[in-house]
């Protein structure tokens, strides 16, 4: 397999103040993103957030109401899709059923009038790259969902595009296949080095695959950051809630710090300058402490154990804190013996390290 000969240069993508309205409905509101050459960026958001609209604008299928987009400094807003040199993979695969697998992959090369032997060589190389070598003569309707998506991927990269756009490409596949394809798409990206912009509503998929993730909601960019930063330092309550599991509890300002139900919290960093504040509690950051324990770095939250949910590799403990508000503590099931004394109704103390004590604007 000749990855080297297929490799393409990555292109820098600059999205500057892009907005799109349909009548009175604002689908995208002043979106700006700088994407580095060869970067894998995911647009993450709930349905209707505008992430697909942005992808369609990048592809040239939709023209923005205002704003500019450049690929390596070249303005593209007025360029039709066929002049942008981008590969696009759709959720529905969008393979052409009137052509076999090889003809689908050869389609962009035929349009570029490459000589037949060159086309045959490149089609075979692209199919090998997506591990479908020898499938060229298959009919599209004979393929499984996963195979169809691989063909769509081969077709989108065979002509050495500058950018690869993917619109929820895996959401029609079952979980196991999806996780396998996530790894393969990332491997392909790393091998080819092309700038990839990937749309999904699956936060775990976004964290797994991306160099950076742009969280979009209501047509606005909420945060653009690497997965770890997104998870550990969410910009606001929406991002904290959407990325990863979390419980948000309202907290009040107390002096220079904050307090949860009257109890002052130890935490790092300044208190955000906002009227309403929330405390973000991630289940895996919480542990149990002995009642009455005290340590400078730990916040101790008293509560009552409500229930225990066994999930296989992990166990969830649901705890009601003093004045209402329920939080979840997650622990590995192999640690269960340490919690042998826990039963529903027991008084417990939940421990939260100060560096994990996240206070955000509500």
């Amino acid at each position, binding site marked *: 397999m000749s990855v080297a000969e297929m490799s393409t240069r990555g292109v820098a993508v600059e999205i500057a103040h892009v907005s799109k309205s349909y009548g009175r409905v604002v689908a995208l509101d002043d979106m700006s993103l700088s994407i580095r050459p060869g970067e894998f960026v995911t647009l993450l958001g709930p349905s209707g957030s505008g992430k697909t609209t942005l992808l369609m604008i990048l*592809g*040239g*299928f939709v023209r923005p109401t205002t704003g500019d987009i450049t690929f390596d400094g070249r303005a593209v807003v007025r360029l*039709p*899709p*066929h002049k*942008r040199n*981008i*590969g*696009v993979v*759709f959720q*529905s695969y*969008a*393979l*052409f*059923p*009137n052509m076999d697998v090889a003809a689908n992959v050869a*389609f*962009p090369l035929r*349009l*570029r009038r490459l000589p037949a032997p060159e086309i045959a060589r490149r089609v075979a190389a692209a199919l090998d790259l997506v591990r479908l070598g020898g499938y060229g003569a298959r*009919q599209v*309707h*004979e393929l499984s969902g996963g195979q169809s998506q691989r063909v*769509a991927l081969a*077709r*989108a990269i065979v*002509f050495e595009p500058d950018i690869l*756009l993917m619109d929820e490409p895996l959401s029609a596949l079952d979980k196991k296949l999806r996780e396998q394809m996530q790894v393969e798409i990332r491997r392909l990206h790393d091998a080819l080095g092309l700038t990839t912009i990937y749309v999904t509503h699956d936060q775990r998929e976004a964290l797994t695959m991306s160099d950076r993730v742009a969280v979009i909601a209501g047509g606005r960019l909420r945060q653009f950051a690497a997965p770890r930063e997104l998870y550990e330092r969410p910009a606001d309550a929406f991002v904290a809630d959407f990325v990863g599991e979390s419980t948000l509890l309202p907290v009040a300002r107390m002096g220079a710090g904050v307090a949860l139900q009257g109890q002052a919290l130890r935490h790092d960093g300044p208190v955000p300058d906002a009227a309403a504040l929330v405390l973000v509690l991630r289940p895996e950051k919480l542990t149990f402490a002995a009642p009455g324990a005290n340590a400078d770095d730990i916040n101790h939250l008293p509560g009552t154990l409500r229930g225990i949910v066994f999930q296989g590799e992990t166990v969830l403990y649901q705890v009601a804190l003093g004045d209402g508000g329920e939080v979840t503590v997650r622990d590995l099931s192999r640690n269960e013996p340490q919690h042998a004394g826990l039963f529903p109704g027991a008084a417990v103390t939940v421990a939260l390290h100060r560096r994990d004590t996240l206070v955000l604007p509500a």
Partner: protein
Amino acid sequence: MTARFLLAPATDTQITHLGRLWLYAFAALALVFLVAPTLLIIPMSFTGAGFLEFPPRSWSLRWYIAYLDSPEWRDATLVSLRAATLTMLLATPLGVAAAYGVLVVERRTARAIGAAISVPMMMPAVLIGIGLYLLYVPLGLNNTLAGLVLGHVALTLPYVTLLVLARMKSHDPRQELAAQSLGCTRLRAFLLVTLPQIRYAVIAAALLAFIFSFDEGVVSYFIATGTGATLPRRMFLSLQFGVDPTIAAISSLLMVLTILLVAAIQIIQSRGGPRRKA
């Protein structure tokens, strides 16, 4: 075995063929009423007599020969063939474009356009005929091929559009977007990707437009007279002077043509259905 199947139900809930006898009789009667009048024409067209009779007492091909020998009938046939061909050639691309537009354009606008296109289908043909006649007087389009073809295009457009639309609805519009990203202009994406997939529906729609125009008699009655008369128009005219078995011969030929084309449409459309999963 057949008798047992007829009388004894195979399961407790099965209705026997005997129990359904009334339904068969009803269906047969309905078919007879639908088909018999047209089928009667065929034996009558082979009569040797100078008038229409059933059953004919003698047989001959003289009325077919009379049709082929008559310059008037030949001219009318040529007008109809020309009109039908031109109608097909105009209505098909327009109808395909309309169907495409209805699917692509924003939903509310598309619904309004879709409704407007199907209006001629629901209007009485007499009204359209009178309207076209009055419209064509100042335009000088009455009794011209152009006027006739324009009228027939308006009449057949809804059928072409609806036929193509029905097929296009099951077509993934993302295929064209993919084709565009791979290097096609929008038109080329349609021609290379969408059209090959909907071609059977397009061919069926074209044949329907042809036969509709060829058979159409009501609107032509108003806007196609004299040298511009179509075959159905000439038939109406000849009926005013008494019934001549030539009419029966022409009707038989028209019927055979219609049946052949409708059968072709059916066969073509059944091939255009969704592919079977392997």
